């Protein structure tokens, strides 16, 4: 961490004097590529609504953790949202219900349950606000390590699983004829999204976290022609909007998660307008 601090202090900006900004910047640099990478497949698989629901499941997990008296409700939230994602995947697989209906059912139930638990016994909802808005400025060095581990894990996972996921996203039967098991691959992917969304929920904010997942990939999709360009552009857009959003939020005194997402949204509309009607 000291090396990082001394590098950042060399920059001629006012905010480099604050330790919390240096921490937050490092965290953003580590976590935004993770969101970019996962976002590519969320958009490819039309899972935007699904990942949104996972955020709601994570919120309920936090609520359950806090009534169980855990100081750090994060781990109970991770477990709950993984179970939640498995639940959605299994029911989607087993029933012939439209997937948006299945997800809608789970998502609303989770939110209702979360609020129910958080407010039970006349407690105020205030404590839960941290998770809704997110606060990257109070991130701890131990959490930065967690973000780093996530980045390493996702990179390794993406090397192993991406090709299979891509074939599944093009056509499940085609994947089947190639010996790729659609259900298991999708299950692993949704569990990973559940973990990432839950872990970073308190940093980015539940209300905007899904946008951070979807927007960079959606923006890159406007101009990319193949998977390499798509990934490169998504990660660049994700990191650029992450860093610039954080610094902007310092000067204009806003919530950093929301600011990051707004910048990503601006990039999306820019690419949407400038996209070529490609061949």
């Amino acid at each position: 961490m000291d090396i990082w601090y001394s590098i950042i202090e060399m920059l001629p900006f006012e905010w480099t004097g604050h330790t919390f900004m240096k921490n937050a910047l490092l965290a953003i640099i580590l976590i935004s590529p993770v969101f970019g990478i996962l976002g590519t497949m969320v958009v490819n698989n039309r899972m935007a609504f699904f990942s949104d629901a996972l955020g709601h499941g994570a919120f309920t997990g936090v609520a359950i953790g806090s009534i169980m008296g855990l100081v750090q409700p994060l781990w109970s939230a991770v477990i709950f949202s993984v179970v939640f994602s498995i639940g959605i995947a299994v029911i989607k697989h087993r029933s012939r219900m439209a997937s948006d209906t299945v997800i809608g059912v789970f998502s609303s139930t989770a939110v209702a349950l979360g609020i129910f638990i958080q407010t039970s016994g006349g407690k105020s909802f205030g404590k839960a606000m941290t998770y809704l808005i997110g606060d990257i400025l109070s991130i701890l060095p131990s959490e930065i390590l967690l973000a780093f581990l996530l980045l390493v894990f996702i990179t390794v996972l993406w090397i192993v699983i991406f090709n299979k996921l891509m074939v599944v996203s093009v056509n499940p039967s085609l994947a089947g004829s190639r010996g790729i098991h659609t259900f298991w691959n999708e299950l692993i992917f949704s569990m990973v999204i559940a973990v990432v969304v839950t872990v970073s929920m308190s940093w980015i904010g539940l209300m905007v976290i899904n946008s951070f997942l979807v927007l960079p990939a959606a923006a890159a999709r406007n101009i990319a022609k193949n998977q390499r360009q798509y990934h490169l552009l998504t990660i660049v857009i994700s990191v650029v909007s992450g860093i610039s959003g954080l610094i902007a939020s310092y000067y204009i005194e806003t919530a950093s998660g929301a600011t990051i997402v707004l910048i990503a949204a601006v990039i999306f509309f820019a690419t949407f307008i400038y996209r070529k009607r490609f061949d």
Partner: protein
Amino acid sequence: MKNENMFHKDCMYHNDCESHKECKSHKDCANKSPQQKDKGCKDACCGFCCTKLKNFGVIIGKTEILRDVNLHIHCGELTAIIGPNGAGKSTLLKAMLGDLKATGELKYIDAKGRRNGKPLIGYVPQYLNFDAGSPTSVLDLFMACRFKFPVWFHTPKRIIGHVEEALSRVKADQLINRRLGALSGGELQRVLLALALDPIPDLLLLDEPVSGIDHNGLAIFYETVSQLRKNYDLSIILISHDLDLVYKYADRVVLLKKTVLENGKPQDVFQSENFNEVFSLKWKNTDTQGREQ
């Protein structure tokens, strides 16, 4: 029988092997009705690469989609499956792929006479309901299907070479860098065919799209498939909606409606009562070319 077998094993190219073409039992087998064939054919078949479906059935929920399907598919033969909408044609292919649970057995015996439980299947799906805006190129799709090397990272030259070669089998090598969503129906079908042929499968399953490809495009597709069958000695099963082309190109036609109604040479099947009943039309055989009336 034993001698014949020996001869076959030594035969490098099935195509050139006279005895294969003239194999009596092989021919007899094709002419027998499904019931007879099932009993007698085990011994009558020359015993190389063939695929057998025995009492094949599919039940989804409480609906029986297919029952008692008995088929025997030889290598180097183009078998066309025809039937009305909802006859279970696509279901049959999906069950053979293992996508749907099926009762009965699917047996495959390869050219070496060794019994392979599961044949290597190439599959061309009827629809690809992918997002047309998806930034996935033809090369990306091939690479993801064939190689473990992560597509998003980098494409080594040897992989590009391999994909170009695979695409050139169906004369589609110029499409390598195009996006899937930017291909026309016919182009996409050719790309998928090239993909199904890489690696060369034992059994090729083709589910022809109902729309999106004009008659001319289809004729080219049939010509290509026909050539491939000769060159690679493949067993091909093709679900078709174009009776003209089936009549012209198929070696064998299976009329399917919940179960196998007819199975035989195109001219025989097309003149059967079941055929007239199912398609409610009369088939006129004008010399070599058939026409719908």
